[in-house]
């Protein structure tokens, strides 16, 4: 029978804490760049101009259909050969997850925008608004509210995906856990605690999302997925 011993985990909790901060930092960076980029991609894809819509569509589809780990490896190992930059794990992760999440966010934006009734566009045109004005003042404010649950769901997915950075030695929670497990020869305790930390954190966010979703449902706004 295996003797569980969590003391090494507790003694080294600082390391895991540092890892969690690393995870949050890369998630935050990806969100900061991914959201605006996603909006730009969505607007381009919906644009009547083909030279805008097609490349945006390609970027969205490509980054949605290829595995994020392949993208990460490409940016980490391949990109520095093509252009002359000093690639760090953090930079590669930031680029990968910003673009990758922006592709998914773009689809959320697009679904939200498309879900606003045609009548709203027509009403905006009827009072003399141009397309960009109508988008900014009439359509987007309505769409964004409906998209909140889908956004948070996507953000949670993003946070789970950031574990991939451990494979290029960026110090996120999983990477630090792996280091700790090898140092202490206590992989069961370390990885079990790590899984639980992720679970508590992500499940907590999920519960908040559900609460928001219920409140939106009560206020009579439909949401899109």
């Amino acid at each position, binding site marked *: 029978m295996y003797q569980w011993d969590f003391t090494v985990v507790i003694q080294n909790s600082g390391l895991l804490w540092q890892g969690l901060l690393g995870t949050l930092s890369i998630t935050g960076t990806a969100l900061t760049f991914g959201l605006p980029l996603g909006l730009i991609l969505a607007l381009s894809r919906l644009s009547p101009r083909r030279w805008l819509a097609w490349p945006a569509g390609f970027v969205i589809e490509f980054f949605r*259909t290829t*595995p994020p780990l*392949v993208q990460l490896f*490409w940016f980490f190992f391949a990109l520095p050969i093509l252009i002359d930059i000093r690639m760090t794990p953090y930079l590669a992760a930031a680029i990968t997850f910003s673009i990758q999440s922006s592709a998914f966010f773009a689809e959320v934006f697009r679904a939200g925008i498309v879900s606003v009734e045609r009548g709203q566009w027509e009403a905006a045109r009827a009072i003399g608004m141009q397309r960009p004005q109508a988008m900014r003042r009439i359509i987007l404010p309505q769409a964004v509210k409906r998209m909140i649950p889908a956004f948070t769901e996507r953000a949670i997915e993003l946070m789970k995906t950031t574990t991939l950075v*451990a494979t290029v030695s960026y110090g996120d929670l999983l990477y630090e856990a792996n280091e700790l497990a090898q140092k202490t020869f206590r992989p069961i305790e*370390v*990885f079990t605690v790590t899984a639980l930390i992720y*679970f508590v954190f992500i499940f907590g966010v999920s519960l908040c999302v559900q609460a928001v979703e219920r409140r939106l449902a009560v206020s009579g706004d439909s949401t899109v997925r």
Partner: protein
Amino acid sequence: MDYTWDFGSVFMYREALYTGLVGTLRIFVICLISGLSLGLAVGLARYSVRRALRWPAAAFIEFFRNTPVLVQIFWFYFAFPILAPFDIAPLTAAALGITLNSAAFSAEIFRGGIQSIDPGQWEAGRAIGMRHRDIMRRIVLPQAIRRMLPALTNRGIEIFKMTTLASAIAYAELLHQARLIASINYNPIEAYTVVALAFFAILYPIVRATYALERRMARGD
């Protein structure tokens, strides 16, 4: 940008890539079948009238939906062998992690699909004397699965993408093989570009098919 692309260096090792492709397909098929079947079982349990089934199913779903797959794979690869009296191959560990994760996600798809069926269908089945189990099997599931097809295909695509995680524990799938080629030849650009394009080429037609399916369903069953 004066880099000279040389895909010949990748082509030279096409047998290694082929091995990787076979490895990718193997783990994909294992996870697709076991993940969806387990997901159906868990989804039915989640919908069961018995609380003793419903509760563990809900806990399973929440736990595996809310933890990263890579953490689960690491757990099965590094931690589990200490508890279990046998060695765990990379394939087993990766397949376990991906399967459990996919089961949790597809369980929610199955539950949603089953709940989307009009209660009148249950009543009509009961009215001709069918039992709960028969109504589920003959009336509700066939209709629900048709409705769930786009969501299930999406799950399948996600599973295919997830197989790359197996490379993190040195399972010889496409990405792992590309890494190998890149380290031998020092041609990471070509190696990873080829793999990225391979995934895109395999999955994009399926994605298009899903879109078409969704459009057809939106027009009416």
